[in-house]
């Protein structure tokens, strides 16, 4: 997969989305090469089924292709947008399929050296450890709410019922958890400057 369109390799994700909006297919394939793997990992985690996960990833990348002209870089990163599309598709599918979302993962292949080789593997592992490390620092109830909502695909009402808590409590756990996670992961903000603020 690597080496197909090396002339696009130096472009930012946002530039690639702009090219995809102009129907440049090589931009879509470069974006897939960058985000196909985390997209598939996320979809598999939510759906727990390889073929459904493929469906979710395919639908998400086609949604990207269709709606790229509407992407506004000022509102956020392209990678956030792409992973949001994937997550939305996965959650919609898991609800439609009514799969048992709390079941343990079965037969998921071990992460292996793939297109990116050892260095991409190292990057993914670093990211994973960072996110999991931050989740571990959250109070248990907040972590549970985030994990069941994001990885489990449960709605807030389903969570309230499942956990036997009022809806307001669930909302507040999700908000507090996500806000705290934001602090732990470090908010890069949008402005770039030389100035220190503290």
């Amino acid at each position, binding site marked *: 997969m690597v080496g197909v369109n090396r002339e696009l390799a130096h472009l930012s994700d946002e530039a690639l989305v702009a090219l995809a909006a*102009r129907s440049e297919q090589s931009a879509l394939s470069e974006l897939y090469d960058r985000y196909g793997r985390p997209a*598939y990992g996320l979809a598999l985690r939510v759906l727990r089924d390889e073929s459904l996960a493929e469906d979710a990833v*395919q639908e998400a990348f086609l949604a990207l292709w269709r709606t790229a002209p509407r992407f506004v870089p000022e509102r956020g990163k392209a990678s956030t947008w792409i992973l949001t599309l994937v997550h939305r598709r996965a959650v919609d599918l898991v609800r439609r399929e009514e799969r048992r979302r709390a079941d343990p993962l079965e037969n998921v292949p071990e992460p292996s050296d793939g297109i990116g080789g050892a260095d991409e593997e190292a990057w993914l592992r670093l990211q994973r450890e*960072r996110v999991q490390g931050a989740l571990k620092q959250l109070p248990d109830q907040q972590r549970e709410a985030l994990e069941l909502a994001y990885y489990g695909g449960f709605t807030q009402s389903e969570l309230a019922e499942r956990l036997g808590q009022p809806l307001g409590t669930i909302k507040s756990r999700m908000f507090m958890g996500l806000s705290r996670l934001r602090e732990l992961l470090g908010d890069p903000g949008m402005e770039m400057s030389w100035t220190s603020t503290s």
Partner: protein
Amino acid sequence: MDVHELTAAYALDALGTEEREAYEAHLGSCAECREELAALGETAAALAWGVDSPEPPAALRGRILAAAAAERENVIPLRARRPWVVRATAAVAAVAACAAVGLGAWAATLSHSLDSERSARAAEARAVQIVVDPSSKTVALRGGDGMVAVDQSGRAVLVVHRLAPAPADKVYEAWVIPPGSKPIRAGIFKGGGSMTMVPLDETVPAGSVVATTVERAGGVDAPTDSPILSAQT
């Protein structure tokens, strides 16, 4: 139910269909929620990186590209879009060259001027230690994909994903800017790998900015250009 309170649930995709539609309708008229969603949405998407990611089946890529081609052929005639593509490509290439953010060859690189391979490996091991140490503080980069990790004694590592190689006769130079101080040189590096890890030469006091500029080969004592990457620790 106050629709304002739904931002976190929406960012996590934890709303039912009706609530989701109501929230989206509300977003159009509420700048405060749009701003909050931009922030929380980014954090929610970061959760995507917290799972194991096995390689997707190889056929998936081809299926997506074929489906995309089939869709677009029906909509936009090839000839009409050509000039746009050329102009857009040239423009974004120019921007990207300045931003110097890109995809390198996927090969582990420790882009730091070091004497021998052995000390390079030792420095890399130290760098990895700082990054994975749970007591280290990590902040995400602006201007690129990556982070700065600072351990409790202030030793720090800059990690950049897919940093394009520095242009010929140029280098990347890292700077530490303690609160109220001028930028201090913290190392030069070439980039070009999939993941660039740069152990900084200077410790990073709390509240410092860590920044990167493109400078002439050998580096300079004070930055001559705007930062391409920065992080507020």
